[in-house]
């Protein structure tokens, strides 16, 4: 069994924080982009989608972690998918019961959480190897990172496309909404812009570190 050979990770703040920033599922790993672009035309949709995905991530991560020594290696992917699909079905009926408007706004994308690569990726790469606490904390971090990314897109798109955030209008009546932002192309543009911004910041930091290193080298 290879399971015993893998180092069991201690639960540290880093287990949670990694998913939020360093290994952010959307901005860094570029996983699960379909819901990220499709449901972020308003902040509330983005928030609901983020929470639903986090719930599925955490509960499937917990169950897979508990069953990790029982699942035969050959059929593990199929098992994970069935576990994930079960929790997605629960979320699907839950949202339907809580708010039908929200359910209609999100449409098929709630059921499509099943094929969100973030969840399967976490199951395969983390939850299937770690103990319950580590798996849950890591899934929570990933879920928070995913929600954060959704909110980044959702707020920008709602602000520019409708002039409001969470339905509150922020601009005077003279504001002409950029309708394209709430339409499909806007999703691509906003995500592209965020990535440009992060890449620019990363390169600027690298240049600064380089310059600092040079100064140090000359100083000594």
């Amino acid at each position, binding site marked *: 069994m290879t399971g015993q050979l893998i180092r069991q990770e201690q639960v540290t703040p880093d287990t949670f924080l990694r998913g939020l920033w360093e290994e952010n599922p959307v901005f860094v790993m570029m996983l699960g982009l379909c819901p990220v672009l499709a449901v972020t035309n308003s902040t509330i949709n983005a928030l609901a989608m983020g929470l639903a995905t986090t719930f599925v991530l955490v509960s499937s991560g917990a169950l897979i972690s508990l069953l990790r020594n029982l699942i035969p290696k050959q059929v593990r992917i199929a098992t994970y998918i*069935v576990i994930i699909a079960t929790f997605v079905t629960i979320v699907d009926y839950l949202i339907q019961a809580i708010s039908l408007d929200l359910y209609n706004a999100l449409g098929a994308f709630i059921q*499509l959480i099943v*094929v969100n690569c973030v969840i399967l990726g976490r199951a395969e790469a983390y939850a299937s190897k770690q103990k319950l606490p580590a798996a849950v904390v890591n899934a929570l971090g990933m879920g928070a990172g995913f929600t954060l990314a959704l909110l980044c897109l959702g707020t920008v798109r709602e602000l520019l496309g409708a002039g409001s955030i969470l339905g509150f209008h922020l601009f005077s009546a003279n504001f002409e909404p950029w309708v394209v932002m709430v339409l499909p*192309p806007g999703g691509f543009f906003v995500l592209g812009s965020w990535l440009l911004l992060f*890449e620019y910041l990363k*390169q600027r930091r690298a240049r600064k570190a380089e310059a600092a290193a040079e100064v140090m080298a000359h100083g000594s």
Partner: protein
Amino acid sequence: MAPDSLTFIFLNAALINNFVLALFLGLCPFLGVSAKKETAWNMGLATMFVMLVSSVSAYGINWLLTLLKIEFLRLICYIAVIASAVQLVEMVLKRFSPILFRALGIFLPLITTNCAILGLALFQTNREYDFLQSIAFCIGAGVGFTLALMLMASLREKLALAKVPTVAQGAALSLMLAGLLSLAFMGFAGLGGSHA
């Protein structure tokens, strides 16, 4: 055009509500396998085949589940069928075209988690299409997916020769390109009149 005619369903899935560029389904292969035209074409065909198999099976399953009144199992059954269909394609490809099998690499098993396929099965159920309509819908979706993939691959082949700022290289540029394509596809909305 009547909204439930076969031609309209086909055009709607292929152009007006293109799966990739308007509904954001199947973005992973769209961004991942669109570097070369040839791989993009083969990926498109493989996806279309899986779509056809899973659409027909989803139709059958839905009929059976409705008959037995256990619709809550729909999602689990669909995903199981899709996974088997992908396995089938994988075996066929491995047997008849090992080169193609290697070229597609990890993206072949990942067709299972391609949301375009599950999306297709779910949409056809939600919209209550009959058998022929489902087939038209799934061929339209497949054509639309291949079209988007090919357009993107052609653009990126040209782009490989262009000089772009270092900040914009990689995913950000692909997304901007996809945005422009999506903007162009919005022009097709006029085709469907008010039904779109």
